[in-house]
């Protein structure tokens, strides 16, 4: 079996609000699984239910595969959870925080693993710093190291890169890819569609509902969308011309436009000619694969979300 966790028909209401409306999916072993959606989609509620911190109104989270090897009721030591709020001891050092978490989980000889993790997260030079003195990106890495000290089989990361700058964000991604080599299954949530392109498999959520699932390329292929990217000057005039004459969604960026077609689309040369006849200088025009952001917008606007 290659399923690590199964989520089956999870429902959760807060008063009148359907926070989670009948959510089901499987998480495959040793993959990066993404929960993708804007604030308020239900990502955090779902993660808390999966970790056993919150009770669902109905439905279940099935860890059978892990339990069958480790024994029933042993699941707590096999999962790790990184919450959105920084939850380490700011007045303890990096080393002491890891030691503390190791103790709680009854890990005896943690020193070698700790050195390994500090090396891996590039925190070795900071091991005697108080956690409160670290930058945002470093705190995230420390929290991750703490979670990994007891060698969980599955880790749940709730928006680990929100508010983190691009340099730390990319470093965090390299670390996560490295973890797959240790046979760890990773569930990660994010509101950023560009980040979701990096996952092996994603579930898109909006307002407590599952709106799409698959690998990023499967999700895109299912949409039958085509995007034409046009780099041109002056971009604002081009926008007005295309809005009037082309039957597609037009999105304007700083120095280029995207035409998003559903179904049929015109030849690149036809569009180029139309723009050039209107005194627009086109420096590049090409077809490209739609982004997950294009897909999400289409799903929401077509009423599927």
């Amino acid at each position, binding site marked *: 079996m290659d399923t690590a966790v199964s989520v089956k028909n999870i429902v959760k209401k807060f008063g009148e609000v359907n926070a989670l409306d009948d959510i089901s999916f499987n998480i495959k072993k040793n993959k*990066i699984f993404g929960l993708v*959606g*804007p*604030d*308020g989609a239900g990502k955090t509620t779902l993660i808390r239910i999966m970790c056993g911190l919150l009770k669902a109104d109905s439905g279940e989270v099935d860890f059978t595969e892990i339990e069958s090897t480790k024994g029933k009721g042993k699941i707590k030591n096999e999962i790790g959870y990184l919450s959105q709020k920084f939850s380490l001891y700011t007045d303890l050092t990096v080393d002491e925080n890891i030691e503390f978490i190791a103790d709680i989980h009854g890990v005896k000889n943690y020193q070698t693993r700790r050195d390994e993790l500090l090396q891996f997260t590039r925190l070795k030079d900071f091991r005697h710093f108080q956690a409160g003195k670290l*930058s*945002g990106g470093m705190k995230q890495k420390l929290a991750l190291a703490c979670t990994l000290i007891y060698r969980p089989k599955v880790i749940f990361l709730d928006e680990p890169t*929100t*508010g983190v*700058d*691009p*340099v730390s964000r*990319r470093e965090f*991604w*390299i670390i996560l*890819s490295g973890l*797959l*080599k240790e046979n760890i299954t990773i569930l990660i949530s994010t*509101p*950023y*569609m*560009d980040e979701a*392109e*990096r*996952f*092996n498999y994603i579930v898109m959520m*909006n307002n407590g509902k599952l709106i799409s699932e698959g*690998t*990023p*390329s499967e999700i895109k292929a299912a949409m039958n969308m085509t995007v034409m990217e046009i*780099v041109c000057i002056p*971009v*604002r005039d081009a*926008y007005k011309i295309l809005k009037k004459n082309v039957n597609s969604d037009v*999105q*304007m*960026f*700083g*120095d*280029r436009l995207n035409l998003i077609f559903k179904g049929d689309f015109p030849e690149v040369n036809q569009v180029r000619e139309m723009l050039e006849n209107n005194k627009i200088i086109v*420096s590049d025009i090409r077809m490209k694969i739609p982004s997950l*952001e294009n897909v*999400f*917008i289409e799903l*929401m*606007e077509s009423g599927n979300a």
Partner: protein
Amino acid sequence: MKSIEVKNLTKKFGDFISVNDISFDVYKGEIFGFLGANGAGKSTTIKMLCGILEPTSGDALVSGFSIDKDPESVKKNIGYMSQKFSLYGDLTVNENLNFFGGIYGLEGSILEKRKDWALKISGLENKGNILTSTLSVGFKQRLALGAAVMHEPKIVFLDEPTGGVDPVSRRKFWDLIHEISDKGMTVFVTTHYLDEAEFCNRIILINAGKLIASGSPAELKEEFIESTVLEIVCDDTIAVTELLSDEDYSQNVSVFGNSIHLILKKKYSENSEELDVIKRSISEKTGRQDNVKINIILPSLEDVFLNLLEKRE
């Protein structure tokens, strides 16, 4: 026409130089992106440009007023909006607009006209009496923008305006920004989300208080990406990554979901013989996997940014 003129702007806090002798111009009606990682000096610069922090040396003209000599006039002629800066949740939409209109000294028929405008652009016509806290994030954001520019300033500062909102609301927000800049308002955006920066006409990047790059998104990609990036779609990404990392042509290899991004050591043209040789070598490495695809991918601003910062380390 110049809307903001920054000349040798410097700010020191004790021995620490937060902003180190930066100069740049922003033109009327432009969407201008001001980028940098946390701690690069972005907030300090914005505070000076808004007239609420005095520079140590240098000066800037904002809408023609000196931030050093006439910060009060600067404050009156700009608008400011941030994701963190929120409207009052326990006031109605109308009450919020009255409050902000009052701060900017609007009254009578002008206030009414501008309120109608703010309601219209935020999609809240006939909804002035609802409590602001009940609005969704997207509506709140557009209302906050409307409130920030009720007094029709020539320049509006947006501080990380769209973090965390859904893509549809974000799209609507940027369409609105393009609309107001089209009417001549200058839009100054600070952000560390690089995909947000793609919406800007021109960008500058600062690091450790110093300006390190400027240009349009396309110019920056052309100028600062000196090598070709290949995307390789294959089954066993981890094993292939390890095989490729030792090759002479590989600068950096990283796993990207179900594919691999391989940064080469040089820039190759799309149909060159050299690139074909590399592609063939990659195909050999990936072995007998059937569905292997290799494509050139265009760099993102994030690639540019990381490339620039790594070079400085």
